[in-house]
């Protein structure tokens, strides 16, 4: 998406249809409520969160060694390990693996990393046809849109719209929007895909240093259908996906899906350790800015993220602005603290797309201090001069006013006088605070004036 269109403008587009915004808001809140219900059903929930957080802290402090141990163990298991410094290198590795076997069709299960790397576009430019096999991802792929949520890729779409997409691309009857019928249609269409693709790419939820295996979680079974039928399985993972030992999976698998959708566990939690007979298995370890983020003390623990999406479901801004308003592969609060690390100018708007209410931090299963990081990114972005001119001028005026008590008192007087005597100067579309709000009635006096009078 274009870098010139920022979160406020993109939110305006989403907000044109108020009924849809309310529906989107309610749907995500319902998922948040399901998460609460199952979390509250586990008496040791907070212990699990704390333990998961500590394990991830340990991972980040030993990442160098864990990566080397993982690589050695995976190689012993017969997995080929590749290293990619950035998106471009990752994409080239995938393409060269496919080309070495003369393959020009691939089936792919959900991988936010490949969204981050724009793999599909790259492969398509190079003559490789890619089909996303997660139902939600297939829907947005057919609609030529990016996913709007990391767990629920087409959460922004109504079933009528999905029915229309299926009618155009998969030949269902016009007007059919029943989820049962649409899912069955996709099942038949994608079975054909699974059976005819020689290569499958999956994401990685967790990779285990101790054993050199990796775990992929899905509800649909699409990662397994792709991987077990293909002659080459490529698994792409960010370097932060490592965990030290297999037993640590118990903590993360208990937290992941309960936080994500309120389910006790995903339908499939598949542990890939060795390629099957006659199959090639590859893991690509991708940095793409992660080692830089690791060096930013204030922001490094964003790398603890296990991609559950709980912070999005609970975020009052995300729920009302939609995933596409974040113009980055990962939307919501976590995306807003990951994206500026990659490109501070392009994503300078995202840390401001928050009320700093802290709800994201409260639901995060690995205890990332998301709202604190949003606040800290704002300081970095303003100091670095990456904010828009209007925001910079407004902040300068604010600083000028607040740094002197005389100027502050005078500004209060002017404000109260204006609201009382010349409301038309602020009750108009030029004032951003007037949008969707009535301006308040002006009080007769300031708190200081009232205090002086009444506290004698």
């Amino acid at each position, binding site marked *: 998406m274009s870098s010139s269109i920022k979160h406020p403008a993109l939110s305006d587009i989403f907000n044109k249809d108020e009924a849809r915004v309310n529906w989107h808001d309610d749907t995500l809140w319902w*998922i948040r409520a399901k998460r609460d219900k199952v979390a509250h059903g586990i008496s040791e929930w907070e212990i699990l969160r704390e333990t998961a957080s*500590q394990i991830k802290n340990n991972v980040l402090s030993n990442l160098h060694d864990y990566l080397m141990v993982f690589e050695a163990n995976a190689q012993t298991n017969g997995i080929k390990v590749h290293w990619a410094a950035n998106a471009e290198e990752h994409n080239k590795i995938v393409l060269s693996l496919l080309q070495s076997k003369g393959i020009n069709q691939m089936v792919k299960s959900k991988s936010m990393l490949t969204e981050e790397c724009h793999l599909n576009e790259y492969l398509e430019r190079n003559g490789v046809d890619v089909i996303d096999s997660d139902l939600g991802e297939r829907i947005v792929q057919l609609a030529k849109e990016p996913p709007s949520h990391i767990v629920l890729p087409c959460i922004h779409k109504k079933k009528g719209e999905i029915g229309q997409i299926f009618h155009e691309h998969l030949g269902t009857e016009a007007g059919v929007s029943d989820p049962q019928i649409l*899912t069955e249609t996709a099942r038949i269409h994608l079975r054909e895909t699974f*059976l005819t693709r020689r290569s499958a790419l999956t994401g990685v939820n967790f990779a285990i240093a101790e054993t050199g295996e990796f775990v992929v979680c899905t509800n649909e079974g699409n990662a397994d259908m792709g991987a077990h039928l293909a002659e080459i399985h490529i698994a792409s993972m960010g370097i932060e996906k490592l965990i030290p030992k297999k037993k640590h999976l118990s*903590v993360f698998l208990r937290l992941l899906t309960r936080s994500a959708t309120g389910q006790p*566990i995903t339908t499939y939690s*598949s*542990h890939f350790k060795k390629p099957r007979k006659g199959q090639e298995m590859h893991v690509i370890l991708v940095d793409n800015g992660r080692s830089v983020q690791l060096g930013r003390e204030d922001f490094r623990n964003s790398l603890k993220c296990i991609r559950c999406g709980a912070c999005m479901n609970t975020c009052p801004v995300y729920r009302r602005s939609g995933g596409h308003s974040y113009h980055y592969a990962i939307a919501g609060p976590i995306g807003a603290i990951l994206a500026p690390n990659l490109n501070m100018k392009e994503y300078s708007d995202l840390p401001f797309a928050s009320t700093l209410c802290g709800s994201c931090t409260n639901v995060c299963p690995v205890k990332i201090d998301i709202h604190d990081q949003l606040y800290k990114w704002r300081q970095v972005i303003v100091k670095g001069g990456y904010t828009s001119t209007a925001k910079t001028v407004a902040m300068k005026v604010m600083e000028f006013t607040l740094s002197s008590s005389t100027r502050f008192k005078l500004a209060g007087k002017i404000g109260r006088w204006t609201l009382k005597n010349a409301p038309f100067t602020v009750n108009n579309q030029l004032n951003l605070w007037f949008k969707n709000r009535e301006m308040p009635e002006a009080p007769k006096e300031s708190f200081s004036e009232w205090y002086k009078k009444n506290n004698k």
Partner: protein
Amino acid sequence: MSRAAILSAILNNQPKQISLPKDLQFDLPAGAAVTEKFIQMVNLIGGRVVEIQRVEDINLYASEHFGAGERLVTPIEELDFYTPFTGEELPHQFVNTEFAVFETHFAVAENGAVWITEDRMGARVLPFICQHLGMLVSEENIVSNMHEAYNWIGNADYGFGTFIAGPSKTADIEQSLVLGAHGARSMTIFLLKNTF
């Protein structure tokens, strides 16, 4: 080339050593309470439980639920539809499997999942590609939670292993739950009751 650069950047930037937390242990229910919780969770995640006294009881279930022309597959030798595997089979050939049954290592009460490894699958793709899935669980092999589950697995070696919890499902279309996404449309747990 990138390997060295990535590793050196990480070594430069990673914080100083933070130690691992201690392993978690919780007081756990035992006996009938565990079985009851497991059955409850299997039902919740869209599966069903059929209690059996002997492994061969699965034959009756199969004959009642599937027609003569339908392909039934199992690596369990006691069953009438036992299928020998050589390990050389093309996975694609199982596409028309209507029903497949496997013997699990153990089940987990807190989430209704079962753990099965490749050596008990016949072929890796089979538990996923079959239309309907059956899983044999011995009642004494039900653990309470995932911590116990990984203790059970320990250092066991396998090429591929998976927790399966219920039929494949999706809610990607307006959050309406649909069973039978890409994997099995149904999952039946054959719960072999304790005879003592």
